[in-house]
C-alpha cells in the first residue's frame, strides 16, 4: 500500500527536512557573533568565558584536581571579579594554538588570554583586538653548559631544536638567513624539543626565553644548561577581544592597566581593603573608585561601576602579586626583565636590561 509506505518513511523525510531547514536557518539570537556588546553578554550570562592554555606551567595549566591556574588564568579571574564581582564566575575554555582566534570570533569565548603574541597580521587580518600586553618575552636560546655557544654568532652549522609550525620556527630561519649560517632544525612538539635537547640530539634549543627558563628550572640538573641572554624576536603576550567592541575592550584593558598602576601606587592584594577605606592620595582613590577626603567618587565613564579595579585587586592582587604567585613559581625571575616596572632601579641590572612595564595614568 502506497499510503502505509509513505507513512513508514514519514519520520525519515521529516528528519531530513528538519535538518535542511535548521541548517539554512540563521537565528543568531545569542548575539555573540563578532563585535556586539560582550560586556552586556557577560553580565547577562553571569559568567565569563575565558580562553586559556591548559598545559603550560606558570601561565595556564590544569592541576591534579582539575582546577586551572597560572598567570593568564589570574587575569581571567581578575576580569570576572571586576565585571561580575565574583572571581569564581569564570569558565576556562582550553584553547589551542590552532583554534584560539576562531573560538574568539565565533563568540565561544569572551576574552583570549593564552600566551598570545601581538602581531600586526593578527591585529589587522583577524577579528581580534589586543588589550595591554601582560607579559613581554622574546625568542631565546638554551645550550648545554659545557658548549662554547655564547650567542647565535657561534652557531654556524649547529643542530637546533625548535617547535614545528610556530612563529618561533620562522624567526629562527629569518635570523640564520640574515647571519648567512647553515643550521639543522630538529622539529617537534614543545615536549619533544625539550627531550631531544636533554638527550643531546640537538646542541641548541630555541623557544620563548621565559618558557626555556621555566622548563630548564624543572629539569633534574638545571646547572647543566644555560639560557643565553640573546633574544631574536619580540613576543609581547596580550589578552585578545573581538574586533570593534570598545566597551568590552576598555574594561579588559583597564583591568590590566589598573593592576599595573596598583603595583606602582603600592596597592596590593593584602592592603587594598585598608587603602579603599582610607586612601593615601587622590590617585589611589580614583583607582579604587572611592572618595578622597570627602570629595566625589570619580566616574571615568566605564560601562561598569567605578570600583571594578578595586574588585579585581581584591580577587587577585596587583600585577606583582600575580607574577609572584604564578610565573615566579616556575623559576622565571622578574628583576631586570622587561616585565619589571619602569620605575625599577636599573643600576643593579646588566647594561641594557630592566623593566619597561608602564601603564597610562588612571584618571
Amino acid at each position: 500500500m502506497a499510503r502505509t509506505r509513505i507513512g513508514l518513511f514519514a519520520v525519515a523525510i521529516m528528519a531530513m527536512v528538519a535538518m535542511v531547514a535548521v541548517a539554512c536557518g540563521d537565528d543568531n539570537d545569542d548575539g555573540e557573533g563578532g563585535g556586539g556588546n560582550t560586556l552586556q553578554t557577560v553580565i547577562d550570562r553571569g559568567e565569563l568565558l575565558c580562553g586559556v592554555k591548559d598545559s603550560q606551567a606558570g601561565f595556564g595549566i590544569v592541576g591534579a584536581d582539575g582546577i586551572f591556574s597560572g598567570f593568564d588564568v589570574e587575569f581571567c579571574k581578575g576580569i570576572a571579579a571586576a565585571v561580575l564581582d565574583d572571581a569564581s564566575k569564570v569558565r576556562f575554555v582550553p584553547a589551542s594554538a590552532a583554534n584560539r582566534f576562531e573560538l574568539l570570533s565565533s563568540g565561544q569565548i569572551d576574552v583570549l588570554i593564552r600566551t598570545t603574541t601581538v602581531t600586526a597580521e593578527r591585529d589587522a587580518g583577524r577579528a581580534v583586538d589586543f588589550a595591554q600586553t601582560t607579559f613581554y618575552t622574546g625568542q631565546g636560546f638554551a645550550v648545554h653548559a659545557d658548549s662554547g655557544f655564547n650567542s647565535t654568532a657561534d652557531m654556524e652549522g649547529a643542530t637546533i631544536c625548535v617547535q614545528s609550525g610556530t612563529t618561533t620556527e620562522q624567526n629562527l630561519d629569518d635570523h640564520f638567513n640574515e647571519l648567512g649560517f647553515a643550521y639543522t632544525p630538529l622539529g617537534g612538539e614543545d615536549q619533544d624539543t625539550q627531550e631531544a635537547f636533554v638527550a643531546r640530539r640537538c646542541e641548541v634549543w630555541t623557544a620563548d626565553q621565559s618558557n626555556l627558563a621555566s622548563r630548564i628550572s624543572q629539569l633534574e640538573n638545571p646547572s647543566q644548561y644555560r639560557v643565553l641572554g640573546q633574544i631574536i624576536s619580540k613576543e609581547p603576550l596580550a589578552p585578545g577581544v573581538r574586533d570593534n567592541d570598545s566597551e568590552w575592550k576598555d574594561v579588559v584593558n583597564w583591568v590590566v592597566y589598573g593592576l599595573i598602576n596598583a603595583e606602582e601606587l603600592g596597592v596590593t592584594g593584602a592592603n587594598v581593603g585598608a587603602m579603599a577605606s582610607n586612601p593615601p592620595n587622590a590617585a589611589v582613590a580614583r583607582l579604587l573608585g572611592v572618595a578622597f577626603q570627602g570629595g566625589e567618587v570619580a566616574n571615568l565613564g566605564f560601562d561598569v561601576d567605578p570600583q571594578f579595579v578595586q574588585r579585581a585587586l581584591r580577587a587577585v592582587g596587583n600585577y606583582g602579586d600575580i607574577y609572584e604567585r604564578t610565573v615566579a613559581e616556575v623559576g622565571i625571575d622578574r628583576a631586570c626583565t622587561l616585565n619589571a616596572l619602569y620605575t625599577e632601579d636599573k643600576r643593579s641590572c646588566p647594561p641594557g636590561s630592566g623593566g619597561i612595564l608602564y601603564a597610562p595614568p588612571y584618571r
Partner: protein
Amino acid sequence: MTEPVAGARKVVLPPHRVRAQRPLGTRAREWTRENLFPSPAQAVVTLLALAFATAIVALAVYLVLAAEWRVITVNRWLLFAGGFPQDQEWRLWVSVALVFPLIGAAFGLWASLGRRDLLFMALAAGFLFFLARHGDAGWASTVWVAGSLALFFAGYLVCRLVPREPGRARSIATWTAGGALALALPAVLAVLMAAGGARTNEFSGFMMNLILAPVGIAGGLLLAIPLAVGRASSLRAVSWTCTAYIELIRGAPLIGWLFVALFILEDVIAGDLIVRTMVVLAVFTSAYIAEYIRGGLQALPHGQTEAAQAVGLGRTRTLQLVVLPQALRISIPPIVGQAISLWKDTALISAILPLRELVGNSKAAIAQPEFIENRIEVYVFAAVLFWIVAFVMSRVSQRMERSLGIGER
C-alpha cells in the same frame, strides 16, 4: 604396549614417534626450521615478529622496573573527571553503581563469563583497587569500587538463573534488562546533572569519553535504521535523500565534522558544545551503521519478505517482525566494529575542540612541572583504559555472535 621380544618382527613406529626418539637438539632445530624459517619470506616475517616482541618486552620491562606511576595516582581525578565539581564526586560513583549491574545482567543473559574473562576482570579490579587505595583516596572510593564490582556479579548471577531456552521467564528478563540498558544513559546523565549536579560543560576526562561514545553509538544506531530502510526504498525521493545523507557524512573525516560542531552548528543548536558534539558523533556514526544495516537487508533472501506477505503481514509488520530482526542480527559484527572505532575516535576530541577528554587531560598532566618526564606512563595508562573498554565491547560482541548463531548458516 608389549616389550619387543627377540626374533619378533620389528615394530614400525609411526613417523612422529620416530622423530620423538631423536635427540632433543635435532628436534628443536627441525621444529625451528619447519615452523619459523620454512622459506626466506617466512624467515623475514619471523624476524620482524621477533623484533616486535622484543620491543614489547622492552616496554613491559620499562613499565615494571623504571616507570613512575605517581603521575597517575596524583592525577587520577584529573584523568577520570577533570573539571567535574569535586564535592559532587558521589554522583560519579552512583553512576558507576548504576551501570555495573546492568553490564553484569547483559553478560548473564546473552553471554557467559569464561575463565579468561574472569582473569581479565580480576586484573582490572586489582588495578581499580590499586588506584582507589593509592595516595590519599581514603576508604570511600575503595568501598565504592568493591560495591560496584559486587553489583556487577549480582547482576550476572541473577541473570544466569534465567533459563536460556525461549520462554516467558526469559522474555520478561530480556525485555526488562533491555529496557534498563536503553534507559541507563539518560539515567546516568540525570544522576550527574539533576538537582544541583554538574553542568555539561563541567564534564571532563575519561568520564567524557564514557558518555560521548555511548551517546554517539546509541544515537547513531537509532538514526541508522530509518536511513538504511529509506535507502532501500523504492520511492526515489526517499532513497536519494538517504543516499545523499550517507554519502555526504561518510565523505568527510570526523575531524571535519567536529569543526562543524564547533563553528557551524553553533548557530543551529542552542546549548553547549558537548551537546553539539554528541549530535555530530551520532550523525557521523549513523551514516556508517546505515550502510552495514543495508548490507544486512540485502543479504536477506527475497523469500523472507514474500513469505511474510503471503501470511498476510503488511509492510510495516514485515519490516518489524521479519526483515529488520534478521538484518540487524547479520549486521552486528560490523556495527560493533564501528562502535569500537567511534570509542577510540573520542580521543580526537581534545585535539580539535575546546573540550577535555582523557587524552587532553593526559597532556595537561604531563605539563605539570614535576611530571614532565613521565609522559610514557601517562600515555600507556590512557591506552590501557581505552583498551579495557574496547576489549569488553569486542568480547560482548563475540559472545553475542555465538549465542545468536551468526555465521553458522
